């Protein structure tokens, strides 16, 4: 028996959650928790044969990340380019790290460094900003 709401346009917020997680094969949490919004992701050179093998199993979104990150991009930039939520993007980037296709460079964690950035970093940021 058909429910009376069947066929109605469903504007429920949850609907938008379904498609992104289809891309991840139903996974809703990244297997690794070490990716931050500003972790920089860089594609490993195409010359590596191990990486080439993994590429055959890639989804279109994986290929897009692979191409985008030939120039180092932050996780947030990749998410913006794919138009996918950050958590979904992290799952996809995690796949590419697992298969050795991209490298991730974590940001400096200031909490670990006693809460304050290195003076050399501060000076570099200051000098860079002055040139704006």
């Amino acid at each position, binding site marked *: 028996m058909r429910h009376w709401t069947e066929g109605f346009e469903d504007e429920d917020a949850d609907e938008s959650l379904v498609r992104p997680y289809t891309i991840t094969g139903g996974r809703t949490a990244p297997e690794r928790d070490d990716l931050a919004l*500003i972790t920089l992701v860089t594609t490993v050179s195409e010359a590596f044969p191990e990486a080439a093998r993994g590429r055959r199993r890639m989804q279109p979104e994986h290929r897009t990340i692979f191409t985008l990150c030939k120039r*180092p991009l932050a996780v947030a930039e990749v*998410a913006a380019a794919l138009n996918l939520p950050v958590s979904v993007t992290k799952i996809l980037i995690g796949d590419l790290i697992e298969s050795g296709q991209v490298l991730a460079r974590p*940001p400096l964690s200031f909490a670990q460094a006693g809460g304050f*950035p290195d003076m050399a970093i501060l000076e570099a940021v200051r000098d860079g900003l002055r040139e704006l």
Partner: protein
Amino acid sequence: MGYANSDHADAAPLAVKILVAGGFGVGKTTLVGAVSEVAPLRTEEYLTHASVGVDDLEGVGGKSTTTVALDFGRITINRQLVLYLFGTPGQERFWFMWNDLVNGAMGAVVLVDTRRLEVSFASIDFFESRGIPFVVGVNCFHGVRDRTREEIRKALDLDPQVPLVLGDARDRAAGRDVLLALIDHLMATRSRTAPHPVA
């Protein structure tokens, strides 16, 4: 350059971030756009939170998911260092729980609008309670400086050591100056708290 982790210098540059916070409509995305080398990018995240408060009439609680959007920009400092600027989302009660957004920030700029100072109170409280260094940027985009610095400081109940900078968030030079004020503040705080570096 002698950065920590410079043994990775052959790979990606090092990324650092500054948060641009303040209440709704104070000009966060405008400031990010004024200084960013790219048009502000938008990304979103699903945040899961306990549904308590006004929605919770039955006392049932439970979890619900909210989509929170943020705008951010990028400034390439040099080949080894990239600065990201994250404009915090308008819904404060959600981004306050977004650890990935807050963790590892060098510091923050809290933008205020003198006509609606109260919309930025929550951001100031948040950074004070988390011990994250911040400066206050007074967005004078409406061209009216209707309150003195001292009046604004008093109204915000600002610690005397927190810098307060006046400027137009649409103006690149003004945006740069508020960021520079934050860096100077970080340097000053660092030398106050660590007068004798060990290493």
